[in-house]
């Protein structure tokens, strides 16, 4: 099975993401990377938990002052739904339907971009309303590092998926690009996994106090 071979719906392999040697290596290597990412985010969570509400004076805002349910809920719904749309994209990839895969990836990108816009608004809101900045306290540094790193992953994921969509727009699906789309969707799901812990540990536990 060669990467550049032309396929039809009938000849498309059942697991295109692992059909070639390169694809198998990509799949294994990417999961190894995700193991490392798990450790990276765990250390940022650990730092945040250790430094939560550690502020220099009594006037400084604490977690329970700044976080609000509507904003955190809206961001969560956007990212969770974008995880579903990328599942749909991979469903169409496996069914050799390039157009529908591109359509669902486009929707994923749109939802991800909305999430990122909301996060930018949120950071801006904290800085101006509560003077909660990166340098205002240990709490602020830990918060912006953790949530900002996640936001950085979202931005990188968006750039990655858009690049794949544009570069392969005229090529259609083959065994050269199917593993690329699959790995990018794994990355996108992993971003959502991290967000589940962020909305629970940072926002919800922050509001509890």
């Amino acid at each position, binding site marked *: 099975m060669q990467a550049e*071979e032309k396929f039809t719906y009938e000849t498309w392999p059942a697991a295109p993401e692992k059909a070639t040697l390169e694809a198998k290596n990509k799949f294994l290597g990417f999961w190894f990377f*995700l193991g490392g990412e*798990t450790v990276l985010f765990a250390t940022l*969570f*650990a730092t945040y938990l250790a430094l939560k509400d550690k502020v220099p004076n009594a006037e400084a805002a604490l977690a329970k002052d700044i976080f609000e*349910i509507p904003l*955190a809920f809206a961001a969560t719904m956007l990212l969770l739904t974008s995880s579903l749309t990328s599942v749909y994209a991979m469903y169409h990839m496996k069914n050799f339907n390039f157009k529908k895969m591109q359509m669902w990836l486009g929707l994923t990108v749109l939802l991800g971009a909305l999430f990122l816009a909301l996060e930018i608004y949120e950071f801006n809101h904290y800085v101006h309303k509560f003077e909660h900045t990166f340098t205002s306290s240990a709490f602020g540094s830990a918060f912006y590092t953790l949530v900002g790193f996640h936001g950085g992953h979202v931005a990188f994921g968006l750039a990655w998926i858009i690049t794949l969509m544009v570069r392969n727009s005229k090529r259609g699906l083959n065994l050269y690009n199917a593993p690329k789309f699959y790995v990018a969707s794994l990355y996108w799901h992993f971003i959502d996994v991290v967000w589940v812990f962020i*909305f*629970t540990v940072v926002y*919800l536990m922050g509001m509890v106090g």
Partner: protein
Amino acid sequence: MANQQPSSGNPRVDIEYRRKKSAEEMRYQIVSFTLMIFLTIVAFVAVGYEGFSGWFTVPFILLLAVIQVIFQLYYFMHMSHKGHEAPALFLYSGVAVGAITILAFTTIIWW
């Protein structure tokens, strides 16, 4: 090429089988998504509701997060499929190191 696929000699049969498998998988994923949304709403409601103390709410929402992430990993990221032994090893090694780090930072570091 075609001989590398499990074939019954009648490609239509394989296509039908594959289409059925994909549809079935899609059903699992829809169920997972519904559950994930439901767990998220429960967590937000538990925090919004004044009647619960933090001693109940925090472990409860952490449990909901873990359940939701298991659905994400095993259905959305296909870890329930065959051939995911190495990914599971990598991921759980990461989780183990991460858990020890979080335990250390939240218990033996204080100031």
